[in-house]
């Protein structure tokens, strides 16, 4: 049996039926990572010994009749989630030596569900990037084309799942960092409603935008994983105290009468024709499934990127002030005095993009500029959010492309931050508004996967996954495997 080709649902079923043990499965995937990941660089740390211990424990639990929903299923965590006793680097030199002293709530929840962690995945440094090229541990390569980026910042998670090294991985999404790599690697990725998944132990980038979520091969798998990840956490002051629906129970609901809105602004200049064509084909599938499609307007769309590049850097500059070389992480050699300790620790410990964003944030928050930048951005955030609320008075779900282009070549945008930022032009607004959104594969542009985005109203993850699942029952884009990864 080719265990690596099975998704989360299939593996959970195979384990439940006793067709394989978790130890066998874990050994098979670890061997695959050893054999193939030299090409992709999707893992920063592989936790081989711990994974085998967890797998043996999962098999014991199953034998004792104590199996949970994910008992024995292998997963990987983006290296932004703190893992007790395991290096948590955030792909930064600053945290290269950081052994987290506790587990993130998300990590605890997977442990409680019985999942087996294979390792920690590569990412853009501190989740700042859209190509996974800003990692201290080197770029990740896209399994569909090794000369191209996998997207970012959750690029390691996306490449690992696409290359069939692991059936599912966690990611985080501040401006598109789950959805854009999911699109560029042909996966299903979900950014939940702000507050749905605990941020405790998830290293902070921009606290009012960050949200954790799954990268998987199907909406069905994403529903199972999100049921484990989501839920109230008293340790996160922005966590929402509201029951988590059983997303997997409503996947098969009819789409008859579902109102889908296509925002004009998401189909304009800058959208590559092959991407537009794939998305338009997908719209026909939704119509066949009974959905009613109409044009809508989101007039403030063009303001999302400028607004984001005030809010995100401002929050990043305050969050990253904690890296001072005193309590944990990197410290420069032989500091002359305290100022030298701070400056050289941070200058040497952070990479160029992180420094750039800290400086933008420092500038916009500096004395006298607050009203012109941060306050202005918060007002625009209100207008962007109001656009969505006006749209949701008319439609149930908003549909458009996830990213304007498929995967671009390594190095193509690294020297031009503005071009890099524009690859998140369709994803950023959902973060500013705090809305749930997901990306699913909907075709190819040449040999490269294209992603389709669905955005819903607050806490409508169940409806989005339902729509995505029904689409995936009609299509097989999500079952395509990169060449060489069969």
């Amino acid at each position, binding site marked *: 049996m080719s265990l690596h080709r099975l998704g989360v649902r299939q593996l959970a079923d195979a384990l439940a039926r006793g067709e394989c043990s978790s130890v066998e499965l874990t050994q098979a995937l670890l061997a695959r990572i050893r054999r193939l990941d030299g090409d992709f660089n999707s893992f920063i740390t592989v936790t081989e010994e711990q994974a085998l211990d967890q797998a043996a424990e999962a098999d014991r639990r199953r034998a004792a009749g104590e199996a949970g929903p994910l008992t024995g299923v292998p997963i990987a965590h983006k290296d932004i989630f703190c893992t007790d006793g395991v290096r948590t680097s955030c792909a930064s030199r600053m945290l290269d030596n950081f*052994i987290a*002293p506790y587990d993130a709530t998300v990590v605890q929840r997977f442990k409680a569900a019985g999942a087996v962690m294979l390792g920690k995945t590569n990412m853009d440094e501190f989740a700042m990037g859209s190509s996974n090229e800003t990692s201290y541990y080197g770029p990740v390569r896209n399994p569909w084309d090794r000369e191209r980026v996998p997207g970012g910042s959750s690029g390691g998670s996306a490449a690992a799942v696409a290359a069939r090294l692991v059936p599912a991985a966690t990611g985080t999404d501040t401006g598109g960092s789950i959805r854009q790599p999911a699109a560029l690697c042909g996966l299903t990725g979900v950014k939940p*409603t*702000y*507050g749905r998944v605990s941020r405790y132990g998830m290293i902070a980038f921009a606290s*009012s*935008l960050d949200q954790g979520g799954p990268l998987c091969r199907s909406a069905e798998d994403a529903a199972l994983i999100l049921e484990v990840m989501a839920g109230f956490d008293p340790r996160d*002051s*922005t966590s*929402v105290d509201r029951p988590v629906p059983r997303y997997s129970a409503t996947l098969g609901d009819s789409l008859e009468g579902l109102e889908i809105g296509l925002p004009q602004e998401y189909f304009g200049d800058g959208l590559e024709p092959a991407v537009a064509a794939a998305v338009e084909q997908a719209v026909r599938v939704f119509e066949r499934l009974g959905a009613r499609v109409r044009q809508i307007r989101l007039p403030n769309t*063009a*303001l999302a990127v*400028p*607004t984001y*590049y*005030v809010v995100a850097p401002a929050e990043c*500059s305050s969050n990253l002030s904690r890296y*001072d070389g*005193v*309590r*944990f*992480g*990197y*410290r420069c050699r032989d*500091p*002359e*005095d*305290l*100022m*030298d*300790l*701070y*400056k050289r620790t*941070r*200058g*040497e410990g*952070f990479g160029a993009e992180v*420094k*750039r964003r*800290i*400086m*933008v944030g*420092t*500038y916009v928050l*500096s004395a006298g500029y607050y009203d012109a*930048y941060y*306050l*202005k951005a*918060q*007002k*625009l*955030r*209100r*207008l962007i*959010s109001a656009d969505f609320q006006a749209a949701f008075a008319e439609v149930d779900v908003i549909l458009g492309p996830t990213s304007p282009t498929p995967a671009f070549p390594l190095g193509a945008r690294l020297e031009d*931050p*503005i071009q890099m930022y524009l690859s998140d032009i369709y994803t950023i607004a959902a973060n*500013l*508004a*705090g809305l749930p959104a997901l990306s699913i594969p909907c075709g190819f542009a040449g040999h490269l996967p294209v992603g389709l985005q669905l955005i819903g109203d607050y806490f409508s993850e169940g409806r989005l996954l339902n729509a995505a699942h029904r689409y995936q029952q009609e299509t097989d884009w999500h079952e395509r495997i990169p060449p060489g990864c069969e």
Partner: protein
Amino acid sequence: MALTRSDVEKIAHLARLALDEEDIPRYTRTLSDILDLVAQMNAVDTHGVEPMAHPLDEVQRLRPDEVTEGDQRDKFQAIAPLVQDGLYLVPKVIE
């Protein structure tokens, strides 16, 4: 908005970042580009718009002021760059 080299040096100082000399022209250029992008915000009149600080407009939840965590000083200091007698060491601050 075009920043000057001395603007960038001042911002880097405020952010406590030592920059390599040869990198400063590139930061000056890219930071100016980003501020140009951000300036697109000014095209919109936001007079009277309520600023949005939280996506769900919720207020910060408070918890009772009770001790919920035990002392983990040794565990946390085990990963510190330099400690002595339970204290974090830094270069001398007061002469």
